[in-house]
């Protein structure tokens, strides 16, 4: 399409009109105001047409079948209200208990900075550790379960010739545990929450240590942030969470600040960027094996310079 993009303001106004006209009972005065707006500028009519097309598609859906399909996809959508009601902080207990039970240095497998490991896990699963990550798979835990103690892992289970496993694999983490028989998923411990992305299959999530709260089902293509007592859909920052499994950082219109934070996980020392460049947008795929080269590439493509105070202290700023 060769038309110029519409102003955000125009889109927002068109949305307001849509809410008033299509989702409410509009009086004659409102309709008149709308007609006036619609004719005031060709862009107004264009924004309206786009919204109207979008809307008509959804309103043609068969209600019962659609709702049932979407809910089958997400039993978590059913659980949401329940969660909000019962989310009273038992999470802290779980958190403290979990931490005491196994500290990262007691893990049996861990990866260093910039290192990635592929391991055979319980029940024929494959476990991939990203940089600075640790898992515990020692028996008795390791028979049908593993503990993510730090960092980020990809778990692939049920993909082998034998197909889905009969016993569910359990993955425990700071803020809750997961169960699955057949899935490929990614779990990352962030400072505020656990991030879960499912690529194949279905994963059941049990938040924290809260008996009585129904588990959530997360299926292929879904992404979720959870803490011991809450869940959130999370925000797409333009960085592909799966990139590291292929040794790359893939960004699509991501903030430089976010790219730099992500990159810093893969190198020792300090890497930061100044505030005035943090909002620049970056797209591309970069090899994680050589982060210095990534910095050089970024500096080449954007108006940036990289200053190395020492080998382990790099600052990115405007050139």
């Amino acid at each position, binding site marked *: 399409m060769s038309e110029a993009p519409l102003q955000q303001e125009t889109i927002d106004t068109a949305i307001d009109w849509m809410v008033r006209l299509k989702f409410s009972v509009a009086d004659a005065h409102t309709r008149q105001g709308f007609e006036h707006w619609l004719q005031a500028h060709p862009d107004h009519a264009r924004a309206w047409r786009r919204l109207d097309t*979008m809307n008509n598609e959804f309103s043609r859906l068969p209600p019962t079948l659609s709702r049932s399909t979407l809910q089958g996809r997400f039993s978590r959508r059913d659980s949401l209200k329940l969660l909000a009601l019962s989310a009273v902080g038992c999470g802290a207990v779980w958190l403290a208990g979990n931490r005491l039970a196994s500290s990262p240095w007691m893990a049996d497998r861990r990866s260093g900075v910039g290192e990635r490991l592929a391991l055979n896990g319980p029940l024929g699963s494959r476990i991939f550790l990203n940089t600075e990550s640790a898992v515990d798979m020692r028996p008795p835990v390791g028979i049908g379960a593993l503990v993510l103690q730090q960092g980020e892992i990809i778990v692939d289970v049920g993909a082998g010739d034998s197909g889905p496993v009969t016993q569910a694999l359990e993955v425990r983490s700071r803020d809750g545990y997961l169960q699955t028989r057949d899935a490929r998923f990614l779990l990352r411990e962030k400072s505020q929450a656990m991030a879960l992305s499912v690529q194949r299959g*279905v994963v059941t999530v049990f938040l924290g240590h809260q008996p009585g709260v129904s588990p959530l089902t997360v299926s292929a293509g879904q992404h979720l942030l959870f803490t011991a007592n809450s869940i959130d*859909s999370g925000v797409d920052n333009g960085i*592909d969470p799966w990139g590291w499994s292929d040794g790359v950082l893939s960004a699509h219109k991501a903030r430089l600040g976010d790219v730099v934070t992500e990159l810093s996980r893969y190198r020792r020392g300090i890497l930061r960027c100044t505030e005035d460049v943090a909002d620049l947008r970056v797209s591309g*795929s970069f090899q994680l094996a050589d982060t210095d080269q990534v910095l050089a590439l970024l500096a080449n493509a954007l108006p940036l310079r990289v200053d190395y105070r020492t080998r382990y202290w790099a600052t990115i700023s405007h050139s």
Partner: protein
Amino acid sequence: MSSIPRADLSRLSLMYHEHLPWLRGWLNSRVGCRERAADLAQDTFVRLLKNRSSALIQEPRAYLSSVARGLVIDHYRRRALEEAYLQSLAHIPEREIPSDEERLIILDTLERLDRLLDQLAPRVREAFLLAQLDGLTCPQIATQLGVSTSTIERDLAKALAACYRLRYNDE
């Protein structure tokens, strides 16, 4: 589609010949089906053509796999949705079961809706479904969810804005 610079085309065609077998193998290891992997490999290049991406291509395979990863996720998302759809058919009267052509359109629309719902907060999601699927008005939704009408109006505006971004922003 407007014209693609010749340099981009020849670069793309070089990538195609050099890396297609590798990409098929990579995809096959993710989806476990040769035919599907071959289809997705084609789709990957179609997407590159469409995007005319200005991305920094440091390493063609890294770049191809980053595009293909998104398609693998879409593939499994669609499959999950189709399974849920088939299960739902069991619960509706036979005369309401859509025809094959209708089914494709419905599934495509549901896929977009599913992606959208993923980005919305729980109440916004519910309000949007009540408005779009059940045809309730803002005051009716407000009563059902126990919040004010103006809150629902804001919720629906948020949902429509997210919808618009998904649909038109990557043009």
